[in-house]
């Protein structure tokens, strides 16, 4: 029997009003502005842009405020908003070699053109709580030095010269887009990278970590990690040429792995790639390890059955909005489903008792 039920409108309205009041918190304290969140919680804003898959710092800051700091809820809001926007086109692929780097490090080469640039990093801090921040304090003005105007080439270009590292795959075909067509497996490397860059940071991190611990073998070095602004260009049909439409901050990681060689390839280094919106270093490194791990078949490596080698496992569980939607839906009313299960269990129990009695 199916029974339609209505009700709860007043309870829902009151719950939402209370939510708004809880969001505001103590009204004796100043309210957070969008600009404050954007400027002072920048890395949270970056994560919401990366996993929300929409670069707009003000919108991400608004989403964080609305979600009371719940970043997955904020990412959900951004994903929902982006579906309302008309797609004006695709950019020319960004040229990360021309990035205005604020950070650029290599774990493989000490001395390289452009140098090792630390940028505004948490590395080498002692991870001790800084109680000075509990009070308002103006930071020191950062030191400056004359910038080197020369281009900062990718580190792996040096290895490429000797043929010691694989060449990246080339293609002029437009890449498939998982926001336009459902993901099909096996997925192209381009599609995998799209899924990974918008995937949940925690999930990608754990997958990458599992490969380091032995579930699928990677022994990666960070060939290069760079962070900075990159110009975005788009072809304008009315003009017939490409113009810059803005700039985005990106984090790029090119990781380098050993490779024994195969029937067709000589021994050389192979690569994993990470590219993520914003200053998102952990995610970008993790992405490059998972990208490399998923390439086992292409490189003729052994499938050890590790989760990070399983394309379906990784790609179908990386999206925190899909995951949270399916997970959290089980808290919504399932009265009819549960009623059916209840009937079934009662029936089975009655049958079991009847059999027991008959046997006695």
């Amino acid at each position, binding site marked *: 029997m199916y029974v339609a039920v209505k009700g709860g409108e007043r309870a829902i309205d009151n719950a939402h009003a209370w939510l708004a009041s809880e969001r505001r918190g103590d009204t004796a304290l100043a309210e957070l502005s969008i600009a404050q969140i954007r400027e002072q919680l920048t890395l949270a804003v970056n994560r919401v842009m990366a996993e929300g898959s929409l670069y707009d710092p003000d919108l991400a800051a608004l989403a964080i405020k609305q979600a009371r700091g719940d970043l997955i809820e904020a990412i959900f809001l951004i994903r929902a908003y982006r579906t309302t926007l008309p797609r004006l086109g*695709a950019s020319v692929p960004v040229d990360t070699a021309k990035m205005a780097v604020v950070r650029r490090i290599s774990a493989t080469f000490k001395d390289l053109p452009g140098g090792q640039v630390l940028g505004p990093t948490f590395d080498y801090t002692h991870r001790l709580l800084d109680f000075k921040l509990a009070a308002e304090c103006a930071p020191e003005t950062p030191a400056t030095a004359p910038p080197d105007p020369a281009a900062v080439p990718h580190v792996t270009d040096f290895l490429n010269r000797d043929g010691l590292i694989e060449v990246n795959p080339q293609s002029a075909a437009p*890449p498939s887009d998982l926001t336009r067509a459902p993901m099909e497996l096996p997925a192209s490397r381009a599609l995998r990278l799209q899924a990974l860059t918008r995937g949940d940071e925690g999930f990608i991190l754990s997958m990458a970590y599992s490969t380091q611990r032995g579930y699928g073998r990677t022994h990666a070095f960070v060939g290069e990690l760079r962070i900075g602004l990159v110009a975005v260009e788009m072809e304008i049909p009315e003009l017939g040429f490409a113009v810059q439409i803005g700039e985005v901050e990106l984090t790029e990681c090119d990781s380098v792995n050993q490779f024994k060689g195969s029937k067709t390839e000589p021994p050389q280094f192979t690569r994993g790639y990470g590219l993520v919106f914003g200053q998102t270093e952990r995610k970008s490194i993790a992405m490059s390890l998972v990208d490399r791990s998923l390439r086992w078949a292409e490189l003729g490596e052994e499938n050890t059955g590790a989760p990070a080698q399983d394309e379906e496992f990784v790609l179908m569980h990386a999206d925190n909005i899909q995951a949270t939607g399916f997970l959290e839906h089980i808290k919504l009313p399932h009265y009819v489903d549960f009623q059916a299960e209840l009937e079934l269990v009662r029936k089975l129990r009655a049958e079991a008792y009847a059999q027991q009695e008959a046997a006695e």
Partner: protein
Amino acid sequence: MPQTSHRQDWMGLLARAKPARLAELFPDLPDHHLLRAPEVGAVMVQGRIGGDGAAFNLGEMTVTRCSLALPTGQVGHGHVQGRDKAHALRAAALDALLQSPAADDLRRRILGPLCAEEAARRHTRAARAAATRVEFFTLVRGEDQ
């Protein structure tokens, strides 16, 4: 410092300009009629596998576009990052005006300051980055002496 003599250069500069600063430098729009009213949308930003390989879809960015024509016939287009319709409208109007006899004056009054301010912002970031560049030095070890 980027050039402003070519249309690509000034369109890029106007797109990258802070909307509030552009409004300050260019408060009043000229007479025009809209060919495409300002429209907020998304552009799919693409990256390349490994930095120089095949393209892949990285994620979208918000972009506002606008097209207009001046009474004198010049057509201007604006494609600017973000959701600021006034920014797109100003960028389109300036794109049209920069093709007109008013170009030299506008280049001096608007593009010049925008260009200089952008160069200063970039220099500040680059100079701060340069101050965090590591200078390695080798320690003399005991057994080498």
